[in-house]
């Protein structure tokens, strides 16, 4: 279904697109000239995505499209039909518990005014998903597409490093728990008298 909308001097067609945003399905009618960033903010009210330079330089508007970091100012929403999009609003748990990367940014003073933060956090989430233990030089390189005018970057790099370390610790604890549980199960199985077979 398309509807015509009169813009300045030309009639352009509004097109329906289906987007899955932070796990929720949205069907929206979009004007072709509107970027994904415009539609997220203005039509869906997801104002956590910040539009800074609007020409791909600052990285503030970075979101994940099908898991990959993408400048939401450099793609049109009409191109995004049937994609899965993660914005900054999709990271914290339903009860408000912050994502480990968000928590680390808070702990390490990885933000001041906060304008660039959503882009940094989503870029860092993707980095840690593809490289769980990056060194500081790698973190710096991978975040070089995001500009911050407040922090001087040192806190941001530390935050990503801390998130990587904590994530590794959580995973190690989970493995240890699993090993302990398995040992307990094996021990209790050994204690039980074997049941007679039919």
């Amino acid at each position, binding site marked *: 279904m398309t509807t015509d909308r009169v813009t*300045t001097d030309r009639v352009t067609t509004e097109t329906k697109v289906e987007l899955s945003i932070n796990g929720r399905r949205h069907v929206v009618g979009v004007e072709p*000239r509107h970027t994904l960033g415009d539609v997220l903010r203005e039509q869906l009210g997801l104002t956590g995505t910040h539009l800074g330079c609007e020409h791909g330089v600052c990285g503030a508007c970075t979101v994940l499209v099908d898991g*990959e*970091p993408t400048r939401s100012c450099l793609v*049109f929403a009409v191109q995004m039909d049937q994609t899965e999009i993660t914005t900054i609003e999709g990271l914290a748990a339903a009860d408000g518990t912050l994502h480990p990367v968000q928590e680390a940014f808070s702990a390490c003073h990885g933000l001041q005014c906060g304008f660039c933060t959503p882009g940094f956090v989503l870029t860092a989430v993707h980095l840690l998903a593809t490289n769980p233990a990056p060194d500081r030089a790698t973190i710096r390189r991978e975040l070089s*597409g995001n500009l911050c005018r407040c922090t001087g970057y040192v806190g941001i790099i530390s935050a990503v490093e801390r998130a990587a370390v904590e994530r590794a610790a959580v995973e190690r604890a989970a493995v240890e728990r699993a090993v302990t549980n398995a040992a307990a199960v094996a021990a209790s199985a050994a204690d039980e008298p074997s049941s007679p077979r039919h």
Partner: protein
Amino acid sequence: MKSAPFDYHRATSVDDAVAVLTASDGEAKVIAGGQSLVPLLSMRMAQPTVLVDLNGLAELRSDRPTVTDGRARFGSMTRHAQLAIQTHHGLAAEMAGWIGHTAIRTRGTLGGSLAHADPNAECPALALACDAALSVQGADGVRTIPAAEFFAGMLQTALADDEILTVIDLAVPRRWGFAELARRHGDFALVLATVTELADGWRVVVGGVEGTPVRLADAEAALSSDASTDEVGRTVEESIVAYDDLHATSRYRRAMAAELVRRAVDQARRTQGEAS
């Protein structure tokens, strides 16, 4: 910073895209990755009436190139991120890693960068350095344009309004070297240089000094006669005419071109062959 209105057409095939381009009489624009085009639209430096989107065309994508007889063929919608991780063309992988940032490389494409023809970009220099044969499809059918004839000037190519770049066929160099100078990681190059050994000899290509990437015949001759790295560098400085702009003077560009060629020559001479 909002694009002027346009109609959007998601192409269902290359034929379909060509039909829309032909019907629009030069007023349509093809969008591939859009990482250079969308800013131009937003700043209204380009105001097409129709945008023809190639992103749905599986026929233009290639996860890995087709490799035959020392040449690698890539679909024009190959993303920079894919180019950077493929292992069939080492120079293409190295150069793709220098393009923009992760969030740009996930979207930007080889064909789009060539069609945009920014002289400071990596892909045009790659095409010239590897004797690219560029397949294009238009209303009159398919033709192949050699890289040497494709770049017509700053942001200008031999592509007609109704033509789409479909396949990029690159020679796989036996040995290669690449060096780039940019103010910040991910920026367009101020100057970049490639040195490639192809079946018919050495090629020395420099980008960022003129409106298109340039081949340096004198440096190639010096390299073929086993001149020292410094001698090759000297011929570079003598043979190019670089432009001045707010980023760098002509003299600085010439000096950097010579230094980058020296580094690329050293790298090429150190490496083992890929194709043979």
